[in-house]
Structures are given as structure tokens and as C-alpha cells.
């Protein structure tokens, strides 16, 4: 017996819930050396910007306990080269592609969405809101419900009606539910969380910041408890909104944790750096865990940990042997 792993992002069906996280799978080609990208539910691209970007100086990544700090700085080819070379490569292979976009102003996001609207092979648009708003003294969109909603409305308005718009949120806000709600009100069809909270490390030998940029985004298992908490809060407040969960997923158990908290899709980022086969391994482990718990459909596990205490579990519960 196998588990029905299909899942939905708004009306879009994905064959399974595992995707790459934005910015963690290069252009797709690098991973394709290791396995066929069609085996993933989807590929989320790095965040595409209007013009090419060289990114930040090195060192760009520092290791922290169970985490990585990165200040890669959205290095990428820009939307023209992306539409010329990267998207067609994915489209030709029939890879389900969610395109992430990043801008410095509301209008930049709108322009990016418009460019994508006329391209073939865009299954959904993920809006990276963890960018500074150059029109508001560099305040991060994701930290300001109104600004986030404005970006989402602009992207929604410029996108094809059948292409879901996904708002990607950050955890380092006082109230993630308020931002989520604003984005949904602004027209987001789905949410994606969490982006990396801002962190920092200091090299105690050089006695300087470990990253050339000073601060960076924290990813990896260290932040999984923050991701689960954000998913839980937002799914409880907005149970009808599909959520892509991410943050420190290294194994099928971790993916299941996010699903039980409310994610219907799980994106894998940092784990890929540690194991190029991570996405496929996690998918296999997840299916196996669901099967062992008696699930016939992934969809039945989404948000299941929210059921009121005392109500019986849906699946089998005698898990002692499989709990390793």
C-alpha cells in the first residue's frame, strides 16, 4: 500500500509535498546531476531580481550550532537571463517550477510579476518579502504588515489569474499572524514560512564578524522550532490557507513535524548543502512514516497536531518500534 502524496497549493496540484527552498538549489542544473528534478513536488527557484546581482563579498556563509548564517545577497542573473536561459531549461524538462522574486520597491515586485506573467512554465510565484524597502529607509517588507500587503497586491494584480501568489514570511516579527493576515487580505493565495531570521556570528580569532556583511540569515535545524511555532500560529488563525513550510528540515521526521503543524508543502534548503540527495531521501522517509502511521493520504496529516487534546489520533498509535 502506498500513500497518496498529492497536495495542493490553492488549485494547483503537486505530485508530492517536497520542494527545494528558494536560493538553495542553484539554477536547478546543479541538482539535476544527482537526480531527476521531476521527482520533486516542485522546484522553487532562487529569488529573481530585476537586474543581475553579484551578491555579497565573502565570507558569505558561517557555520553555527545546527545552523548556517548566510549573506549571499541574492546573487543571480537578473530576470532577463533567467527568462532566457534558466526558466526554459526547467520548462523543457517539465519541472514544476515556482519562481521566487525579490525587489526593493513595490513597483519592482510588480514589474517582475508582469515579466513572469508572459513566460511559459511558471506554476506559482513566491514573493520573498525579506528585502529592504528602499522607499522606507530600508525597512524589511516582511516586518511591516501594510508594506507586505502592498507588495502582494501588486504582484497579484500583475500575475495571471491561474498562477497562485505565495507570500514568504520571516519569523523575526512581533506577530507573524498579523503579517500573514495582511498578506492574505492583500491577495496571497498561499503562504511560505519561514525565511531566515537575522543573526550574526563573530570570529573570535579575527575578533571581527564572521560574515563580510556582518549579519546574515540563520537557517538549518537550529530554527526549526521557530518554523513550527510560526506554522502553528498561522495555521490556527488561517486554517484554510495553504502553507509551504520550511526551516531546518533534514529528515522525513522533520518534514512530518512541519506537516502536522499545518504545512501542506515542505521546502528543503540547508539540508541540500549537506546532502545533495536530501529532497528525495526526505520524500521517501516521509512517505514511509505516513504509511507506518496508517495514513492513506498525506492530506489527512496536514495540521493534525491541532486536533483538540483527548480526541484520538487518526492513524495507528502503537509506534514504539518505529519511533527511532
Amino acid at each position, binding site marked *: 500500500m502506498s500513500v497518496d502524496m498529492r497536495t495542493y497549493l490553492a488549485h494547483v496540484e503537486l505530485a508530492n509535498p517536497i520542494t527545494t527552498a528558494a536560493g538553495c538549489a*542553484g539554477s536547478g542544473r546543479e541538482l539535476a546531476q544527482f537526480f531527476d528534478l521531476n521527482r520533486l513536488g516542485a522546484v522553487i527557484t532562487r529569488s529573481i531580481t530585476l537586474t543581475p546581482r553579484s*551578491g555579497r563579498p565573502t565570507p558569505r*556563509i558561517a557555520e553555527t550550532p545546527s545552523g548556517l548564517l548566510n549573506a549571499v545577497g541574492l546573487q543571480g542573473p537578473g530576470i532577463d537571463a533567467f527568462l532566457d536561459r534558466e526558466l526554459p531549461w526547467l520548462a523543457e524538462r517539465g519541472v514544476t517550477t515556482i519562481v521566487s522574486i525579490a525587489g526593493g520597491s513595490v513597483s519592482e515586485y510588480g514589474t517582475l510579476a508582469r515579466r513572469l506573467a508572459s513566460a511559459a512554465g511558471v506554476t506559482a510565484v513566491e514573493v520573498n518579502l525579506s528585502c529592504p524597502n528602499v522607499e522606507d529607509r530600508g525597512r524589511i517588507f516582511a516586518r511591516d504588515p501594510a508594506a507586505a500587503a502592498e507588495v502582494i497586491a501588486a504582484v497579484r494584480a500583475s500575475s495571471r489569474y491561474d498562477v497562485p501568489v505565495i507570500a514568504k514570511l520571516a519569523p523575526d516579527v512581533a506577530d507573524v499572524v498579523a503579517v500573514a493576515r495582511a498578506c492574505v487580505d492583500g491577495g496571497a493565495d498561499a503562504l511560505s514560512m519561514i525565511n531566515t531570521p537575522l543573526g550574526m556570528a563573530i570570529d573570535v580569532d579575527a575578533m571581527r564578524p564572521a560574515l563580510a556583511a556582518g549579519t546574515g540569515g540563520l537557517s538549518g535545524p537550529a530554527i526549526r522550532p521557530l518554523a513550527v511555532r510560526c506554522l502553528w500560529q498561522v495555521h490556527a488563525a488561517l486554517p484554510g490557507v495553504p502553507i509551504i513550510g520550511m526551516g531546518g528540515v533534514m529528515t522525513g521526521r522533520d518534514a512530518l513535524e512541519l506537516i502536522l503543524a499545518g504545512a501542506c508543502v515542505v521546502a528543503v534548503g540547508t539540508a541540500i548543502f*549537506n546532502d545533495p540527495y536530501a529532497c528525495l531521501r526526505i520524500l521517501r522517509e516521509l512517505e514511509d512514516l505516513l504509511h507506518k502511521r496508517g495514513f492513506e493520504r498525506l492530506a489527512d496529516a496536514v495540521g493534525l497536531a491541532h486536533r483538540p487534546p483527548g480526541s484520538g489520533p487518526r492513524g495507528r498509535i502503537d509506534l514504539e518500534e518505529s519511533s527511532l
Partner: protein
Amino acid sequence: MLTTRRVDAYHALTVVAPGIAERFRPGHFITVAVGGPASSTLARRAFSVHDVKPDYGGTVEFVFTVRGPGTAWLAERKARDTLDMVGPLGRPFPLPRDPVHCVLVGAEYGSAPLFGLADLLQRRGCRVDFVLGAASADRVFGALRARRMGETTTLTTEDGSLGVRGRVTDVLPSVIADTRADVVYACGPLSTLRGVAAVAIEFDIPIQVAVEQTMVCGFGVCGSCVLPVIGEDGVTRMVRACVDGPVFRGERVRFEDIGTIPFDALGAPGAPGGRAHEPGGQTGNRHVS
């Protein structure tokens, strides 16, 4: 894992890995995951392949020095432990078409990948001369093997405990002159490579360098290992050492600009084709720069 041994200041691990051994060419590297199942260290560690052998279907040996937690963990591995290894990775050393004279320069464990290269070059009829250096005698890796293989071998140590007191760059000009070298291959710390490249450029001979820039994934997806390299078209790009290198033409690497984004690099802030305003960093860390 097959064997572990100590060589002076270095540890050497030999691992049964037929898939890697089969596709290996000199200059390739491998990465290993460190710390075991409950490890708190996520970045893979990169090591040059020192040797491959056909035993057991194919073995791979790499050589390392203990630097931090990852290499400390590796140094404690015992024969028969298993190791999570990915490879071969990167672009190997390009080989000359003709039987030319080659000087191979290795600093510290940078000499590890040079012996496989020397072997290939010699089989193509090239003359091979070695220049190996390190801080002290116990950190010069492979001196004996170099002496066996090379037409000449020049050793340098900074403390004078072996060979000439000084650095590889001090002796390189005379070695190039004496051996009438046509091409230089070099591997070692960036500061050494920079000096070696400068010497080769002065002699106007091709120089291939295998760079070591902090890597996390080793296969092109994390973006940690970039350095500014001038392309065929004259445009500087921030390229990834792991997939576009680690071997580069020495004169194309902008050594003095490593650790910066040169203002004329493609997509640099304010550069042609770049953006006028401070671009939105992923996590918006403007307040610290």
C-alpha cells in the same frame, strides 16, 4: 573506510569509493559530512583527492591537517568506520597537448593533488619538476614522492628546517629559469597562489591554480565559495570555486580582490547592469555595513 594513517603533521584517510575512483582526474576534490548523525555541523568539508587506487574496486585517499571541529572529528575516525563522501567534484587540471616542461608547486597540503597530476603529465611525456614548501619540515607533504617522481625537487620551509629557508615563491623564478618551464601548476593557500601566479605572469607562461575558498556544499548551490574571475569576454564575474573551479587560469583570478565585490564585476552594486540603489539583501543587513 579502509585505513587511516599519520604522515608527519597530516592525517590520511583511504576510503573504498569505486564510483569516485573511477571518474577521478587530478584536481578533483571530494566533500565529507562530519560529526556523525546527531552532529551540529552542517557544512560539508572539502578535500583534494590525493590518490586513487584500484584495490577493493577503487579507493580514494585524502590528506588533511586538523584545523577545527570537522577535521578533529575526522582525525578520530578508525578503520572500518563509514564516511559520507561525495565526489569527484570540480573541474580537474587541464593537460597540455604537447610534451612540455611543467613545474608543480605545492604549499602545505596543497601538494597532495599534484602527484596524480605529475603521473598523468609524465605519461604524456612531459618533464615534471616540483617545488614544495611549508612552514616547517613536518608540514611539507610528499617530499619523498616528489623526489622519486620529479626531474628536480626544490623544498622550502619558513623556519629552514628542510630545504631552502623561505617560501615557494622565493625559489620559483630560478626553478622556472633552470627547467625552462612552459607551464606552472600550483595548489596551496590563496596568498601563495597569488605569489605563484605573479611569478608565472612575469615569465609569461601559463599558470593553473587550484584554489581553496571556503566551501559549504561543494556542488554549486550554496554560493559560499565565490571569487572574482575575469571571463573570456573580459568581464569579471563572481564565480563558484566548486563548480567553475577549483582550477583556474592564474592570470584570470583577481587575487587582490578576493573578499570584495570589485566595482566592475557583473551585477556589482552600482555597476553597469547592476542597480543604482543599495540592493535589497536577502535579510536586509544594511545597518551593519
